[in-house]
C-alpha cells in the first residue's frame, strides 16, 4: 500500500513539476530529465478530457486493485507488483514508456490521448499533467470523495495565497522545490488569447498553482447541475422504485416447529427454595411485605406528641437563651377594622386621598388598612394583604432586634413644675390701664420719679417728655439735638435730676416738677461749680469727657449740666445715692464705660483694658460693686478694692440688659436669644434658672423695688410679669413663677417692647414700645 501511495505522490509531483517547467527552463539536469519525461506526460494527458480521464483511470485502476485486495482476491497485489516494477522502469528509463505502461495497466482504457493536440497545448497553455477529473463511467469513484483524492501539487496547505504575492514562486512541490509562478501576460495577450483560443471561456485559473485549467465537458455539466440545484451526479436515479426489504405481512405458520422443553412446564426447584426461604423470613418477621413497610412508614411519618410539661408552671433546669425577651403581641383590632364599622370610621374623600398618597411611606399612614363596610358577612372577601402581614410578622420575630425598654407612660402635665397659682401671688399688674401717647417715633427708654408721681421718657424723635403718671398728661417736652437713647431719673428723692443720654452728650436736666423746694435746692446744687484745682485730670479722661454748664437757652429748657463724651452714649445709670452715674459708649473701646461724680464734676475711667463690647453697666444697690455686661459675660468689680470679684457665665450669644434685685444678691439678665437668666450671686457663676418665656429677643428686664415682681419686655410685643421671690433663708432657693402675659403693644419694624420700668411704690409696670406709646399696666 505504501508503495501505491508513493507512486501516486510521484505522479502528482511530476505533474506539478511539469507546470513549473513549462515556464521556467533554467533548471538542473535532473530536472531537465524530469522535464523531458513530463513534457511527454502532460502532452498525453492534458488539455483533452480524454487525457485527463486516462490519468484518472490509471489512479482508479490502482484503487480497483485495492478493493480487490479487500475482497481477498490477490489479483491486486500482482498488479501492485507490476506497478512497482513499472515505476522502477520509469525511473530507470525516464522515457515515454511510462505512459504506455500505465495505459497498459489500466484494464479499461477507453480513449487514447491524441498526440497531435499535445504539442499545441504544450506551447500555448501551461501543461497540466495530472488534473483530477472524474470519469462518469467509473462507479467506484463516485462513492469515494475523500480529500485524499484531491490533487495537491502545492504543499503550502490551506493558506491565503496572497502571502506569496511578493515572491516569484507560489509554493513548494512534494520534493520541496519552489513552484514558480507562471508568467502573467498583459491585457493584449489576454485579448489575443480570447480571440484565438476557442476554449478560453472554459479556462479557469487554479489558485493553488497559478496554472490555467481548461474545464472538461463533464466538469461543465457538473457545474451546471450544481448551479441548477440538482444532485451533481447525473447518474443518480431520484425516482427509483421502492424495494421492500422487510415484508409487512405476518406469516401464518411458524418458521420453526420445535416443541417447548419439559423444563418450561415443571416448577423451578431453585425458585421454590427461594420462595420457601422468603415465607420463612416473613413468618419469623425478618422480612416485611410492602404493605407492612408502607404502614410502618406511615406511622413513622409525622411528629409524635407526649406530655412535655408535667405541670403548668413547673420549670426544669435547662440551658436556655440568654436573658430572653418575648416578642410583643400584635395590637388588637379597633372599631375601624370591623367589617361593618360605625359610619364615622370610614374614610371620606380627603382621607382616602391622603391614605393613597402615602403609598411609599406606609408607616406615616393613620391606619395601615382602609376601613371598609360590607352589607353582609357573605360579601366580605379575603384580605389581600393577609399573607404579607403574616410574613412581616415572621420577619419581625426572627430579624427584629429586641431590647428591654422602660416605656415612659407619663402625662405632659407631669413635666410642668408644680408652681403656686398666680391668684395666690397677687398683687401684680393684670390689665392695661393707661396709654401715654405723644411721641412720634419709637420710645427708647422710660424712668419714673422716686416718689412715683412723674415719669420721663426718651424717644427717637429727639425729645424727652415728662408725664404725670396718674393723669397721663405730658407736662413738659424737652427737645434735644440728637436721638435720646436713655433717660434715668435720679433715685435720690432729695434731688430732682434726670440724666438724658442724647447722641454723645449726657444732659443733666432739672425737670421742674413736684416739690418747689426740691427744684430750687437742686438748681442751687448744680449752679455752683466745685473747685477742681487740686485734682489733675489725666489726658485719657480729658479727651474722653468734658464737663460744662449749660447755655442760657438750654438752661431755659431745664438743662443744667452737659457732659460731652467722645462717642455716642448708649446707656446711663445712677448709683443708688444719686451722686454717681455711669455711662456706656459701646464704640469707646477701652474707654467705653465711664463713671461720673456729680458733686465733684469729675469723671473716671474704671478700666484700662476693654474685655469685650460692653453692653450695659449697673451699680450694686448696697455694696460698692459695679456690674459690667459684655456680649457674653458679666463681670462684677469691687470699686473700692478695684478688682474683679466674679465673672458670670451666661452661655448666651448676646446680652441685652440686666437688672439687680433690690437686696443685691440676685441678678436678672435678658438676652437677645429669647432667654432670661436668673443668677444667684451667692450660689454660682452659672444661671440658677434659665427662662424661655418669650418667643423673641428679650429687650429689657426690671425688678420691682418692693414687691417680689419682675417684668420683661420683648420683641414679641409682650410684657411678662413674673413673681420672683427671694427668701431670707439662705437654704431656700428663689421661687420664680410667671404670672401674666400682657400683650397690647403693636408691632412695628420687628420691634415690640423696648423698655420696661416699675413704679417705685405700686405694683404697676410701664412699658415703652416701637409703636410710639408708653403703656401702664396695673
Amino acid at each position, binding site marked *: 500500500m505504501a508503495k501505491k501511495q508513493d507512486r501516486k505522490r510521484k505522479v502528482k509531483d511530476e505533474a506539478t513539476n511539469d507546470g513549473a517547467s513549462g515556464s521556467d527552463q533554467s533548471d538542473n539536469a535532473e530536472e531537465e530529465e524530469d522535464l523531458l519525461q513530463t513534457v511527454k506526460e502532460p502532452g498525453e494527458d492534458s488539455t483533452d478530457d480524454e487525457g485527463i480521464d486516462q490519468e484518472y483511470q490509471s489512479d482508479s485502476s490502482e484503487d480497483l486493485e485495492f478493493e480487490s485486495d479487500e475482497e481477498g482476491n490477490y489479483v491486486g497485489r500482482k498488479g501492485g507488483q507490476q506497478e512497482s516494477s513499472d515505476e522502477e522502469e520509469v525511473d530507470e528509463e525516464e522515457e515515454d514508456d511510462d505512459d504506455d505502461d500505465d495505459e497498459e495497466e489500466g484494464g479499461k482504457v477507453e480513449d487514447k490521448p491524441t498526440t497531435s493536440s499535445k504539442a499545441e497545448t504544450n506551447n500555448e497553455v501551461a501543461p497540466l499533467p495530472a488534473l483530477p477529473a472524474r470519469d462518469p463511467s467509473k462507479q467506484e469513484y463516485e462513492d469515494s470523495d475523500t480529500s485524499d483524492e484531491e490533487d495537491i501539487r502545492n504543499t503550502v496547505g490551506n493558506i491565503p495565497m496572497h502571502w506569496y504575492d511578493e515572491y516569484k514562486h507560489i509554493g513548494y512541490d512534494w520534493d520541496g522545490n519552489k513552484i514558480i509562478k507562471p508568467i502573467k501576460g498583459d491585457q493584449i495577450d489576454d485579448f489575443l488569447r480570447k480571440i484565438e483560443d476557442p476554449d478560453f471561456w472554459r479556462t479557469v485559473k487554479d489558485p493553488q498553482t497559478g496554472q490555467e485549467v481548461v474545464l472538461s465537458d463533464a466538469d461543465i455539466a457538473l457545474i451546471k447541475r450544481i448551479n441548477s440545484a440538482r444532485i451533481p451526479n447525473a447518474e443518480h436515479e431520484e425516482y427509483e422504485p421502492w424495494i421492500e426489504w422487510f415484508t409487512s405481512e405476518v406469516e401464518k405458520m411458524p418458521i420453526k416447529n420445535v416443541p417447548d422443553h419439559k423444563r418450561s412446564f415443571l416448577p423451578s426447584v431453585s425458585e421454590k427454595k427461594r420462595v420457601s426461604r422468603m415465607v420463612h423470613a416473613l413468618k419469623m418477621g425478618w422480612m416485611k411485605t410492602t404493605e407492612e413497610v408502607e404502614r410502618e412508614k406511615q406511622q413513622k*411519618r409525622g*411528629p409524635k*406528641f*407526649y*406530655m412535655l*410539661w408535667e405541670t*403548668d*408552671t413547673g*420549670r426544669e433546669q*435547662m*440551658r*436556655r*437563651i440568654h436573658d430572653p425577651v418575648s*416578642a410583643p403581641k400584635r395590637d*388588637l383590632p*379597633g*372599631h375601624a*377594622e*370591623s*367589617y*361593618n364599622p*360605625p*359610619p*364615622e370610621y370610614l374614610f371620606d374623600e380627603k382621607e382616602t386621598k391622603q391614605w393613597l398618597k402615602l403609598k411609599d411611606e406606609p408607616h406615616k399612614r393613620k391606619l395601615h388598612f382602609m376601613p*371598609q363596610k*360590607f352589607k*353582609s*358577612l*357573605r360579601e*366580605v372577601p*379575603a*384580605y*389581600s394583604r*393577609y*399573607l404579607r*402581614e*403574616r*410574613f412581616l410578622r*415572621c*420577619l419581625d*420575630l*426572627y*430579624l427584629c*432586634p*429586641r*431590647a428591654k425598654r422602660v416605656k*415612659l407612660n407619663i402625662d*405632659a402635665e407631669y*413635666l*410642668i*413644675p408644680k*408652681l403656686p*397659682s398666680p391668684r395666690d401671688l397677687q398683687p401684680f399688674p393684670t390689665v392695661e390701664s393707661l396709654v401715654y401717647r405723644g411721641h412720634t417715633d419709637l420710645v427708647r427708654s422710660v424712668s419714673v420719679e422716686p416718689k412715683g408721681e412723674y415719669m420721663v421718657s426718651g424717644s427717637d424723635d429727639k425729645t424727652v417728655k415728662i408725664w404725670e403718671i396718674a393723669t397721663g398728661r405730658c407736662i413738659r417736652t424737652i427737645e434735644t439735638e440728637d436721638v435720646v437713647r436713655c433717660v434715668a431719673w435720679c433715685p435720690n428723692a432729695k434731688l430732682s435730676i434726670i440724666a438724658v443720654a442724647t447722641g454723645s452728650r449726657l444732659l443733666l436736666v432739672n425737670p421742674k416738677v413736684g416739690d418747689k423746694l426740691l427744684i430750687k435746692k437742686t438748681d442751687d446744687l448744680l449752679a455752683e461749680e466745685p473747685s477742681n484745682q487740686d485734682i489733675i485730670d489725666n489726658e485719657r479722661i480729658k479727651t474722653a469727657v468734658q464737663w460744662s454748664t449749660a447755655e442760657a437757652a438750654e438752661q431755659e429748657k431745664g438743662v443744667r449740666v452737659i457732659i460731652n463724651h467722645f462717642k455716642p452714649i448708649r446707656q446711663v445709670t445712677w448709683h443708688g445715692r444719686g451722686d454717681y452715674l455711669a455711662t456706656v459708649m459701646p464704640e469707646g473701646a477701652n474707654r467705653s464705660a465711664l463713671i461720673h461724680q456729680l458733686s465733684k464734676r469729675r469723671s473716671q475711667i474704671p478700666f484700662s483694658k476693654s474685655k469685650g463690647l460692653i453692653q450695659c453697666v449697673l451699680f450694686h444697690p448696697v455694696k460698692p460693686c459695679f456690674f459690667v455686661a459684655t456680649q457674653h459675660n458679666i463681670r462684677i468689680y469691687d470699686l473700692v478694692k478695684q478688682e474683679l470679684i466674679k465673672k458670670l457665665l451666661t452661655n448666651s450669644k448676646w446680652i441685652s440688659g440686666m437688672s439687680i434685685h433690690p437686696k443685691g444678691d440676685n441678678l436678672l439678665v435678658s438676652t437677645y436669644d429669647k432667654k432670661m437668666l436668673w443668677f444667684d450671686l451667692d450660689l454660682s457663676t452659672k444661671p440658677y434658672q434659665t427662662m*424661655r*418665656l418669650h418667643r423673641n429677643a428679650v429687650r429689657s428686664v426690671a425688678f420691682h423695688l418692693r414687691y417680689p415682681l419682675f417684668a420683661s419686655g420683648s420683641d414679641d410685643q409682650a410684657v411678662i410679669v413674673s413673681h420672683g421671690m427671694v427668701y431670707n433663708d439662705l437654704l431656700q432657693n428663689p421661687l420664680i*413663677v*410667671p*404670672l*401674666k*402675659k400682657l400683650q397690647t403693644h403693636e408691632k412695628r419694624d420687628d420691634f415690640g417692647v423696648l423698655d420696661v420700668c416699675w413704679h417705685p411704690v405700686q405694683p404697676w409696670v410701664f412699658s415703652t414700645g416701637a409703636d410710639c406709646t408708653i403703656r401702664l399696666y396695673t
Partner: protein
Amino acid sequence: MRRPKKYESGEATQYISRRAALRRLQLSLNDFRRLCILKGVYPREPKHRRRAQKGSSEIKILYHAKDIRFLLHESIVWTLRDYKIFAKKSGRDRAIKDFRNLKRRLALFPEIKLDHIVKERYPTFIDALKDLDDCLTLLFLFSTFPSLHLIPREQSALCRRLTIEFLHYVIASKSLRKVFISIKGYYFQAEIKGQKVTWIVPHYYPFKPQSRQDVDFKVMSIFVEFYTIMLGFVNFRLFHGLNLAYPPQFPSSVLQDNSETLQDESSFVSDRIAALNFELLRTDKLMEDEEELDIDMELLEQDGDSKRIIKMKQEAQEVARLRTLFKGLKFFINREVPREPLIILIRSFGGKVSWDASVFAGATFDESDETITHQIVDRPSLSTQYISRDYIQPQWVFDCINQRQLLPTNKYFMGEQLPPHLSPFVDSKRETYIPPEEKALHDPSLIETHVQSDDDDDDSDAEADNQEEEEIEQQLLDAQLQRAYQQETAEYKKYGGTDGVNEDEEDSVDDDDEEDEEEEEEEDVEQLDDKTKRLLEEKQKMKVESGKVHKVNKRQIRKAEVDEHRLQARMVKPRHRNLFRKLIREKQTKEKEEWLLRKKRRNIDADAKEAKKTAKREAKKAAAEAAAKALKMA
C-alpha cells in the same frame, strides 16, 4: 499588668455581628436563619450601638455572643450539616443513576427533632400559652393552603389537624371569650389557664400567588415547622387536662387525606368544618362539670366584700352565664353563610348546629326540624320560612357573645340593615373617641336621652317649616275624619252596628295623634308651672331687694386659664422640653382625630335625620293627596 485595649471588654464583646456568627458556627446564611427561627434566637438592640459595633456607626444585625455560643452546642446544627451531606450524596447517586443506593439513602433521610427545643424555649406550659398567638394565626393560615412547591401537602394537612384539635379543645372547655369580624378575618380570643390567647382565622381563601419579594414562603414554612410541634404538645396537655383522648378520633369519612381532598381546595376545607361538629371521645365518662365553678364562687363569697372581690365575683358570674349562652338553642346555618366561625361559636357556648346535608358533610339535623330556634341567613329573603324560628343574620351570634347576653333579634332579622359591628377588644374606659353605639352598650339610658334630644332638635328645626306641616297635618286629619265618618256611616248602614276591629284601628290612629298633641301641651304646661313655682318660692324667700348678680364671663376665665397654663408650660425644664413637646404633639393629634370622628358622626347623623324627615314629609304629603282624592271620589 497589661493595659486592656479598646473594645476588648465591655459591650463590644457582648455582641457579635451576623457575619461573625456565621463564621463561628460554620453555617450558611440559610442554615443559620433556620437555626435562629427554630431556636428562637433573635438579634439584640445594644444600649450603645457604636460601642457594641467596635466603633462603626452603621447599623448591623447584632446577636448576643452568649446566644451564639449557646447555638454552638445545639444538636440540630449537626442535622443541618447532615442535610448538606445527604444532598450531596443523593445528588451523586442520581447523577450516576445508582437508584438502589439512592433509595437506601432516601430511607435514611436525617430527620430533624424539635421536641427538646420546645421544652427549652417554653420552660413552663404557661409560657407556651403566652406565645400561642402567632403560632395559631400562622397555622390557621397554613391549614387553608393548597399544595405548593415550598409547602408540601403534608405540612398543611398537619396544620389542619392540629388547628381542629385546638378548636375542639376550645369548644370542649368553653374558653372562648371574645370574637370579632374584621376585614382581615375572624378574631377569636380564648382564655386558657388565665392567659388570653388571640388568633385570626382568615376569610376564605387567603392564598394568592405572591412574588418572592413580598412573601417568602420558605421562611414561613420554617416557622410552621416549629409551631406545629409546639401546638401538638400544647394540644396534648390541654386535652389531657380535660380528660379527652388525644389524638381525637373522627369518623373515618372525615379528615382522611384521600386524593379528592388533597386536590380539591373546597372539600379540604369543608372536611375540616365537618370535623368540628363531632363530640369528642372522653377518657372518663363524666358529663360537664360545673361544680368546680360553683365551689369557686363559694370561696369568693366567703372572702370579705372588698371591691376587688366583688368585681371578681361579677366577672365570674358573667363568664358562667356566657358559657351557657346558647344552651338549648338549635341553629341551622344556610348554605351561603361562612360556617366555620359560627360552628365554633355556637358549639362552644352550648348550642347545637347543623347545615344542609346535601351540600356539605357533617350535618346533624335537617332544616325541616321543628325544634330549630334560629336559622342563620345571609341573604335578603327566603322563599320557605318556618314560623317557629328566628331568621337572623350571622352578626347576631357575634354581638351576643361580645355582650354576653342574648340580644333581641329584631335588629338582626333577615334583610334588615345591620347595626355597626363593634370591636370587643377596645378598652371601654379609654379617653379617645367612643362611638355612640358603644356608649349605649355600657349605659343604655344614653340611647333614650339621645332620642329625646333629637326630638328637641326637631322642634327647634321645625319652626321654620311649621306652617307647611301644619297645613298638611290639618288636611290629613280632615281627610281621616271624613273617611272615618263615611266608613262609620256605611258600616252602620250595612250591619246596623259597629265593627270593633275597625273602630279600634281608627281609634288608635286618632289616639296617637291626640296623644302627641297632648304631650306637647303637657310639656308646655309643666314648663310654665315650673317657672311660676320657682318665682313664687323665690318671692317667699326674699326679704331684701335682689342684688345684681355678678356675671362671670366663662370664656374670659377659660382664656385666662389657658394663658396661665401656657406660661407655666414654658417653665418646663430644658432637659424635658423635647419630651414635653412630643407628648403635647401626640396629645394634639389624638384630640384632632377624636374631633374629626365626632364631626363626621355629627354630619352623618344630621344627613340621616334630614333624609328621614323628607321621607316622612313626602309620605305624609302623599297620604294627604290620596285622602283628598278618595274624598273627591267619594
